[in-house]
């Protein structure tokens, strides 16, 4: 059950929710992050998993920033 208070209909918000996507844990700039893997090989930071509040002020670690992972 999801509780949403939004002007966008749920059908639009959750469109593609069941399709799934892969998340992996990866260090970015020595900070543990959760990374969303895109179909084109480009990844984006999904979440910062750090206990240091300063990491959340680092502009390079903003969610949505695109990164390339090594092979």
């Amino acid at each position, binding site marked *: *059950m*999801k*509780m*949403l*208070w*939004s*002007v*966008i*209909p*749920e059908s*639009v*918000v*959750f*469109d*593609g*929710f069941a*399709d799934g*996507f892969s*998340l992996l844990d990866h*260090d*970015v*700039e020595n900070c543990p992050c959760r990374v*969303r893997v895109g179909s084109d*090989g*480009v990844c984006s930071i*999904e*979440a*910062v998993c*750090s206990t240091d*509040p*300063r*990491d*959340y*002020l680092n502009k*390079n670690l*903003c*969610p949505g*920033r*695109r*990164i*390339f*992972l*090594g*092979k």
Partner: protein
Amino acid sequence: MQREFVTSVYPSFTNEISANEIGANEIVDDISSNNNEDDIVPSDPDGGESGGDGDGGGAADDLDRSKVISEMGSANVPDMKSDIHVLTVIGQVEGHLVMPPQNKTTKYEHVIPQLVAVEESPDIKGLLVILNTVGGDVEAGLAIAEMMASMQKPVVSLVLGGGHSIGVPIAVAAKHSMIAPTATMTIHPIRMTGMVLGVQQSFDYLERMQDRVIGFITSHSRIKDEQVRKFMMNTGELARDIGTVLAGEDAVKCGLIDEVGGLGEALACLHRMVAESRQGHDKNDKNKDDKNNDKQGHCCRGKKHLCDKK
């Protein structure tokens, strides 16, 4: 059905650089570090010196800058140091579920520690929250709003475009809230999706959640409880939903938002609040020191003086 309004004259390029050019784990948008001949590299507006405002480069610099904007979709923002931190709440407020990629989201697990960092950082004196959100997860939004409301540092919120649904508690959580004249705020009932049992308990739970939101809004703004509920249950305004859309001036008149204004007014207000809080701190520190000196003869009550740590 979702309509999009796009008025940009520039194509929406992302600042992508191939992996071969910059290597693994490197942040993509650092265009100045990519020195290939084919790429457009913004010139240094200060001519290599720090502390300038970037205006002295002349026509060549302006040309380069406009080229970067048109080709790369990004502006060369001059370096400057500010004691104001800007937090943008955009798109959906994302809660416990990761939204599908078509949504622009503000992630509460990132915002909450960021607020802690802002409160803790000695370099940041005030927080400006800019909202253009369509709403989102109720509990995540309330968590952000509660965090903002409990901050000691001055917080000013500015609603631009829209601050709908759960954006309303976030906007009113600031010590001073502002709204642009053309911005709107929609107040409508909370929704539940997924498997919902058609029993009284489901309705009670939804009503309690709604009460929490309304309680927060009324306790952090001048609007009355009855007025919020009236706006929420209005059936004569929205075609596909019930609720009310409040434009800039209307939101101020009903007491939801403190003032109509834009970026200039919001920043001026925040700087004023920062100056006042600084004066207040100085006054309190002086009073405390005087009091302690009177009582104990020493401000640190015989212990090692804190200033000695320096």
